[in-house]
């Protein structure tokens, strides 16, 4: 049972191709991984699924800047959402936790979470906030601290918590481990696994560095220069010699 299905997706920045004919599916309740090096198209893929690319495209067009073309189809719960705006997609349950976290730096941790919960009903919001503080007990002590004064790991916890507050049905995590220490990577990988197993939220996670993430995914894709060159279950990918050499450094 797929919640998200991407077919023949192509994204161009002017004439440069960022996503080349990608097919990808997320099964309901599972964690799906997307791996790839820098500039493989992971973030573009995430922006395309979450609809942020439409906003980027609109602004570029107004400025007379880069021409961005998006072709293909994205089916979410069997509906084509290609033309749906980002905020509306969030309303439908597609919530992106973006690369480099982008938390609201001048708002406190608590306010960041509250902003995340704008879509949630009052009761839902309270419940989710409690869940987030249980998931990341460390955040509980930082409630009053401004987002800009958090460490990278704390910011990432907050960004994930904020995304959860928006009551996602499909949670998109774009490089959640970027620039973090091995210890923090471990904590966050466990958290992602727990979110999935405890709440059943379907998760799509992209990462450069596969080692901490591979064990927690159900199914994964490998992107290279915008194309999905490889796909398989967690075990299949782990055993694949190409993946081993490229992403494990073995």
């Amino acid at each position, binding site marked *: 049972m797929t919640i998200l299905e991407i077919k023949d997706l192509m994204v161009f920045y002017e004439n440069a191709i960022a996503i080349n004919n990608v097919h990808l599916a997320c099964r309901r309740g599972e964690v799906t991984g997307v791996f790839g090096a820098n500039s493989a198209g992971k973030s573009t893929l995430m922006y395309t699924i979450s609809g942020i690319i439409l*906003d980027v495209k609109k602004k570029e067009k107004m*400025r007379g800047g880069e021409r961005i073309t998006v072709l293909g189809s994205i089916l979410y719960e069997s509906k084509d959402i290609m033309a749906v705006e980002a905020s509306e997609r969030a309303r439908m349950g597609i*919530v992106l936790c973006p690369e480099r976290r982008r938390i609201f730096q*001048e708002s406190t941790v608590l306010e960041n979470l509250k*902003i995340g919960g704008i879509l949630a009903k009052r009761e839902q919001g309270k419940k989710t906030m409690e869940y987030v503080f249980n998931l990341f007990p460390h955040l509980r002590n930082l409630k009053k601290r401004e987002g800009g004064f958090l460490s990278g790991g704390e910011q990432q916890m907050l960004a994930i918590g*904020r995304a959860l507050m928006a009551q996602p049905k499909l949670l998109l995590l774009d490089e959640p481990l970027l620039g973090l220490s091995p210890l923090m990577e471990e904590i966050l990988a466990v958290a992602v696994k727990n979110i999935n197993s405890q709440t059943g939220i379907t998760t799509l996670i992209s990462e450069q560095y596969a080692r901490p993430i591979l064990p927690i995914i159900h199914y994964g894709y490998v992107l290279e220069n915008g194309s999905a060159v490889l796909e398989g279950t967690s075990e299949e990918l782990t055993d694949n010699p190409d993946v081993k050499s490229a992403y494990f450094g073995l």
Partner: protein
Amino acid sequence: MTLEYRSDGVSAISILHHSTLQEPDFYSMEILIYGTVNSIIFALIALGFTLVYGVSRVPNFAHGSIYVLVGFLTWSFVNNSGFPYALAVIFSLVVAAILGFLIYRIVLIRLRGMATSEIIASFAVSLIILEGLRMQGIAGFKGFIGPFYTLKPFIEGKINLLGVFVDYQRLIIIGVGVGMVILLSLFTHHTKTGLSLRAIAQDEQAAMMLGVNSDRMAEIAMSIGSALAGLAAVLILPLGSITAEVGYRVLIYALAVCIIGGLGSWGGAILAAFVIGFAMKISTALFGALWESVVLVGTIILILLFKPSGLLGKQKELEERV
């Protein structure tokens, strides 16, 4: 001591100082009270502008024209249509809010992200409104190029406050000004709409990922911002008179306050309002009213020399540090 604030005629500058001081004993009290009044006038004028800029990064150059338009509408509703004063004020503020919404919806939405075009377009709207009003009354407002058109104060009369005579209108300005700042702060920290506004102000796309509709928020910000300009008008115009020039001057004041405070920073705008308000009041008391505009521009230059991002324009520093 004379307190005839309107004696020197049409100029809106007249709302920012009232009389030459004669007795040194009154200096400090006088400066304190009138400095506060001036500061809050500046804050009220700039609040709507900075709200809109903070949320949608749109410099709303139609701000001053909405200010004047609300003055006219209120005057017109009272004198031509015979509405009670309170009702006229409410009607005008509603019109201002709708106008703000329309300016965004019709004009600015097509120009998002292009600051220069936004400035030119909103200033064009401003010119249409102000020069239209100057040419010939809109909505039945006739004979506008006359001597004085002014709104009447909410409560006439003045009171002796610690040895300084202050008219009730100025006290009302202080009260409403402080009230509005508190209300806005509560609104932006504790309601969903307010939180969405702040989210958009900090990172538009990150807010969109969480389901905030940025155009809707910009419309709301423009409506609130315009209503705030209108509120400032009905509070402050009774101290001066309604002319097209007031619109341009109000725009310049709003810009000055926002630039000194740090563009888009709400706390900075209030701080800057007090800096300018007191700087101008003190210079008026010490050197006379002539120096007022010199001090205004001097303060801007001085502060920007030492802190180019404005008093509380700290976003950049944070970004660099993280």
